């Protein structure tokens, strides 16, 4: 067992760290957080630097970690223009890939993944938005909720109900590529988020929106399977976001303690603080090991859903834990400095792309079905 990354992945990490230090300054992070605005310039720079390349997943994993370590909101915004692209990579026709995937990979377009609806996000099979095939077109009616890039995306990979479910609720769902400027398609920006305010979030309303049948991804009725496959991949990336956040919080703590030391207040670094520091560092290391293990299975095309869910649940809880403890240690400095933003940002990790509760159900069900580690 080798715990060291290859030279290439280490280089990707270094490059991302360098980029983060120059392009994601605290001033920039504060500005977009306050204005609740997508940082288009930073995103363009990140795309131009070629470091956002999801066809190179290991490099992407460490890149996400480093960007979120500098600032979670901007770090996510810089890489999220390809959110959902794996669905196209894995299941779309060559024509769809050429038309939709290529521009987002080249930084010329932004995409989104639209699954959640106002009535529910955890219960994916319970979604209600319908797409009915009529005269060679799908006609879509319904709405999607909390969609990242919702207001700015050129198109969405959207999970829809194309036929009534049979005995299994998840049957009858399909994935379509839906462009954002179609007639009957409206989007409302959702504001007032607790954190990740540099990301754009919107509600999508679809009223008799017509989409060519050729925009169907893969086969009709297999949408649930495609999206679950996608989540299994994206959850590893959320774990990487979470590790970045936790590491960023630890950086703040270390900076604060260094200042105490340098200003002759070393005696204030009690054992209590040292133990908390150890707990944060240990949990970050454990999250890394779990995430890299999950990624290793995934990127070798042998995904282990339960390991990915463990990594996502554990790393996201670690992100929140690290920020909460860092706030306790740093007091006023954290409250009025940049750390408070990390605390606000971290909470989304336990909610999106499968809440912690849903991850725990996935893990338990694998074991109850006789799964082996």
């Amino acid at each position, binding site marked *: 067992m080798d715990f060291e990354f290859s030279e290439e992945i280490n280089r990707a990490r270094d490059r991302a760290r360098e980029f983060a230090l120059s392009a994601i300054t605290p001033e920039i992070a504060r500005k977009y957080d306050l204005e609740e605005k997508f940082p288009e310039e930073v995103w363009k720079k990140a795309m131009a630097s070629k470091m956002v390349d999801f066809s190179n997943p290991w490099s992407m994993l460490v890149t996400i970690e480093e960007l979120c370590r500098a600032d979670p909101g901007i770090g996510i915004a810089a890489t999220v223009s390809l959110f959902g692209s794996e669905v196209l990579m894995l299941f779309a026709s060559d024509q769809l890939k050429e038309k939709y995937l290529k521009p987002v990979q080249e930084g010329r377009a932004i995409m989104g993944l639209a699954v959640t609806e106002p009535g529910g996000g955890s219960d994916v099979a319970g979604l209600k938005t319908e797409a009915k095939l009529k005269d060679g077109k799908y006609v879509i009616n319904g709405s999607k909720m909390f969609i990242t890039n919702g207001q700015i995306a050129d198109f969405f990979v959207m999970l829809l109900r194309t036929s009534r479910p049979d005995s299994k609720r998840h049957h009858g769902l399909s994935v379509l590529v839906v462009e954002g400027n179609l007639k009957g398609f409206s989007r409302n920006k959702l504001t*007032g988020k*607790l*954190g990740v305010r540099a990301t754009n979030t919107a509600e999508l309303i679809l009223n008799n929106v017509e989409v060519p049948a050729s925009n169907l991804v893969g086969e009709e009725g297999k949408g649930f399977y495609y999206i679950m496959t996608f989540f299994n991949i994206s959850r590893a990336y959320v774990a990487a976001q979470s590790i970045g956040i936790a590491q960023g919080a630890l950086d703040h703590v270390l900076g604060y303690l260094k200042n105490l030391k340098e200003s002759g207040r070393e005696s204030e670094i009690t054992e209590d603080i040292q133990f908390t520091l150890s707990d944060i560092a240990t949990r970050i290391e454990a999250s890394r090991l779990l995430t890299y293990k999950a990624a290793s299975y995934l990127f070798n095309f042998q995904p282990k859903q339960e390991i990915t869910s463990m990594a996502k649940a554990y790393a996201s809880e670690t992100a929140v834990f690290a920020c909460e403890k860092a706030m*306790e240690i740093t007091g*006023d400095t954290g409250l009025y400095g940049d750390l408070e933003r990390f*605390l606000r940002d971290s909470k989304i990790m*336990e909610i999106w792309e499968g809440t*912690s509760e849903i991850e725990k159900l996935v893990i338990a069900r694998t074991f109850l079905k006789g799964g082996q580690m």
Partner: protein
Amino acid sequence: MSESSDLIRGAVEEFCQKNISNRALEIERNGIDDGILQALGTQGFLGALFDPQDGGSGIDRSSFFAMLEVFASYSPSVAAKLLITNSIAGQFLLSASREKIQDVAQGNLKVTCLTGSFASARPPAQRLSESSGRIKGVLKNVPSPGSDILIAPVSEESAAVIFSGLRMVEERKPLSFRGLRNGDVSVDSDDFHIIEGWKKKTLDKILSTMDPGVSAIALGISRGALRKVSEYVTVRKTFDHSLKDYSPVSRKISELLADMDIMEFYLDNMESMDDEKALKLKLRSTEFARTSTKAAIQYHGGYGYFEDFGVEKFYRDSYGLSIMMMDREYDNLRLSEKIFGSRSGFL
């Protein structure tokens, strides 16, 4: 619970339903406006602990804590304003200017201070400088920075109550108590009153209100968050079942409510308890506020992450409460000393 605190809970509930509930989001976004402040004054909440001859209501302390708890369950910022006014500000104004207390109690004059500096005996992190009859300097991160009166440390032992020459130089959006606003205040004044050796004179008095007051706000924050989440899990369905039907959800919320009730019992009987118990409750209830508000966001799913649903503010405020309104390290040392009888837990 005493009859009077029962009565006050009812009155405050009614007031909050009418004046705060539908404006809680606006308070978070734009601050507590003059209208609300004056309504708080007219109803006697702003000067709740002040003597009636100083324009206050003179209610008993149990009723005051009950009142704070109810306010915090709707708007922690309003509760924080009431606590600052009745504890630190009240104590200092008593020595500095009795006439001004009346105006503060009515909501016609606004008073603020660096809460953290007056909730512990540690040297203040910020102070103004006083020389030749003038006080000058800039204080950072002052709550309610647009106030008319500012109380600030001028040395390790003395503080000033400053009546004019205050100017807000920068406003910020803080993590917590956004209804109070936050900013830097520049001071250049010859209109002030110095209180020498304030720690000896007033720290104990301040803490005797601040300790249970912070607990009351912590429990109010938790009550507000738990009320919202209990309602939500009853109406929200996932996988064709109410959220409340899932064992981890109902167990967690039930356990939190049980802990809540136990701590509330403590709070309601605060009058018969000593300082040590008040301190214990403060340390436990502030930690509890963080746990319960985090659970409330989580069970709201994506909706919990948006201000419109009114739960995320409780989570944010639970942090500010234990940083702005108290000094946790100092309080842990105080408790260790009370428990072991000598200075302990400092290594």
